[in-house]
């Protein structure tokens, strides 16, 4: 049974949840509570990274870091529910992504060599975690094969949990166009999965 981020059941490494208690957690974070902000961050950062790794694979971590810096600075001014919070977070990320793309076009750089998986010491637990994460990584790799707009719409609808109207507002398109793009993306996913015989 899949585990959803917005459900009550969360991973075992945190005892805080966001959902009905979002308003309380938000108020505490705005008041300077580090624990409350940590809840917000742990709830939203995985989804943010997954979104960024599909639309900007090489610079996902940098964009995510810059996004959170902006969020921290603007946190006291934020007002809204959890849906508005996520919309604000992903809108900020998208803008940072566009800014970085603009900077990279002006100043192209070569990325440094990253630590490969072979260099990381492996343990039994790490192996198990890697197996569990295969499904997530595979799903992200699958979405990367879609056209950029279709993949982005699906990620914002599913991973970010945003409504069609909110996504349309972020992308500057009509809700109908967003819906059509999402459907086409899902059909293409179905064709890829069915034709390749891949099961997750």
């Amino acid at each position: 049974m899949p585990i959803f981020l917005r459900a009550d059941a969360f991973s075992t490494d945190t005892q805080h949840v966001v959902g009905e208690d979002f308003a309380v957690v938000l108020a505490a974070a705005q008041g300077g509570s580090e624990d409350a902000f940590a809840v917000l961050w742990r709830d939203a950062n995985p989804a943010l990274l997954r979104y960024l790794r599909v639309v900007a694979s090489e610079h996902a971590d940098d964009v995510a870091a810059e996004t959170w810096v902006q969020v921290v600075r603007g946190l006291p001014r934020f007002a809204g529910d959890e849906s508005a919070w996520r919309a604000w977070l992903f809108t900020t990320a998208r803008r940072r992504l566009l800014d970085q793309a603009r900077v990279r076009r002006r100043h192209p750089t070569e990325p440094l060599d990253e630590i490969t998986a072979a260099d990381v010491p492996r343990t039994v637990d790490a192996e198990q975690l890697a197996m569990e994460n295969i499904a997530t990584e595979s799903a992200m790799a699958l979405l990367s094969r879609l056209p950029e707009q279709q993949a982005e719409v699906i990620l914002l609808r599913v991973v970010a949990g945003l409504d069609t109207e909110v996504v349309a507002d972020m992308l500057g398109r009509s809700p109908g166009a967003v819906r059509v793009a999402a459907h086409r993306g899902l059909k293409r996913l179905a064709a890829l999965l069915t034709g390749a015989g891949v099961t997750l």
Partner: protein
Amino acid sequence: MPDSPLPPWWGPAPFDERDLDAVLSSETADIPVALRPVADALAALQAAPMPAELRGQAMIMAEFRALAEFRAAGLGKDGRIGDTRPTLVLSVPREGPARRRAPRHRARRRAAPVASRRAGALIGAAATAIVLAAVVLAGNVSGPFHRVGSSSASTPSAPRHAGGNSSSPKVEGSASQEPTARPTAGGSATTQQSKGSRLCHAVYDIVKDSGSSARGKQEMSSLSSLLRQLSKLAGGSRQLPGYCAQFLGDLFPDGTLPHIPGLGDQGTGSSQAGQDNQGALAHL
């Protein structure tokens, strides 16, 4: 997938838009079989966070902590709740004495009347001439006068050039007047020396007679012109007294100095200076 002799696209679609909306909304209970793999893929995207996705928490918490402390400091100062200023506000420097002055209108300088410039030049020339005359007549210039006084016979006197002065004073004594060559455009040293002597004498003539009020204005104009020429020869207006001293010494071949009422006997002349003062002055 059921076996069928018909191609896949023959017949009703395996799923419709409502099914797709249900997958997007994670309502996967009644979705068609064809969409099950898609639903599973989307569910994997919403799985529990991976360790790598929680790695950057320390960095962002440090940023949050720093800003929270900053805001806490701001709360203490003005008591506002939720001070949202993440940056320092710099005060606008007031305009003070350090402010750069507005540039003066250059036109004012240019608009200075010509007459005032001429008046200033004449005043400067007159002051220089007075100083020159005072130095010469008071005997403050040593050296040349002493030499002239001791060897008066060998000192030639150049003919004077008096601008507009008809009465050229004569030099009494054994000094012979030798005509000087006209200054050429190239100007040898001797020529320049004679020209300098001529100009110095002319200046002296005007200064000597400057007490006459009837010719004051005209002579001031001539004096200004003469002093400009002398300044060029002497290498500056400040060099004039010393420059002309070498030429005006022939005026006093005996070492006598003219008597200036009020000044008394002049210093560096010979012992006979005081005796023939009046005579020398009359002849000059």
